[in-house]
């Protein structure tokens, strides 16, 4: 597993306080991991901080799963 994926998952575990085993690549933040709209904003901000990039709102809206986040950062990070 890539370093980016590890870091993304770590952030998700920390921010949402969920069991690491639940944070699979296909897990949806809202449907599977119980995130609300504020959680998703916080997650995006945490990704921005961790990877030193800016994720515009229209891109952030499309980051719905762990995999979406990893893919976006791999492409833009």
């Amino acid at each position, binding site marked *: 597993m890539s370093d980016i994926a590890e870091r993304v998952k770590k952030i998700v575990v920390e921010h949402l306080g969920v069991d690491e085993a639940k944070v699979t690549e296909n897990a949806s933040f809202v449907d599977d991991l119980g995130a*609300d709209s*504020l959680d998703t904003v*916080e997650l995006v*901000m945490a990704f921005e901080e961790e990877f030193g990039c800016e994720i515009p709102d229209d891109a952030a809206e499309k980051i719905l799963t762990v995999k979406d986040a990893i893919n976006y950062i791999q492409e833009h990070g």
Partner: protein
Amino acid sequence: MAGAFDLDGQVAVVTGASGGIGGAIARSLHAQGATVVLTGRRREALDALAAELGERAHVVVADTTEEGAAEKIVAEAEKLGSLDILVNNAGITRDTLAMRMKDADWAGVIDTNLTACFRLARASLKGMMKRRHGRIINITSIVGVTGNAGQTNYAAAKAGLIGMSKAMAAEIAARGITVNCVAPGFVATAMTDALDEKQRDALTQRIPAGRLGKPEDVAAACLYLASREAGWVTGQTLHVNGGMAMI
């Protein structure tokens, strides 16, 4: 054991701390143990207040309407530990009847009294969200609710603060952050000192409590809203006006 409204170990930013009400708010939070960041445009007044308070007082000279000022103030506060309390107190007036009001009078008041407060609140949220604790207090005014001839710009900005506070409060209540307003009535400051005796008497007659407010009256309301005890109070406007408007 800590007493009521204890703020020991917390950091508070007070904008407009060089003014009468801002200074009283800073003194009150400081007296309860908070480290205070005093911001304003007049260094001399801020330095004098910091010297009076002694330790746990820091001065950041800033014009809150300038780009990047909010981020700078928040960064200075976070350096002292964590920004726990933001009091958006800085405000200006450019009074004139609507028919005579210039665009610059309108925009200047909206920029300072509303937009700059939003920017500071937004910049404060990041750390507060992470720590699951924060208190944002916006100093609005009785005229934001009642209106006042000659103050269309000021009344609009102050009413705007109330709406802004409610919306923000709803967004972040689940994170332990409260957003409230304190709405002073007529408080004795340099502004009311300019009135003659007759004008002051006329004003006082409209206040059931029979006197103008003191900056300390406003500061006490801020202290309550800044405290941990007020954690379940959010999106509210606390009117401090000697009974002049009962809303």
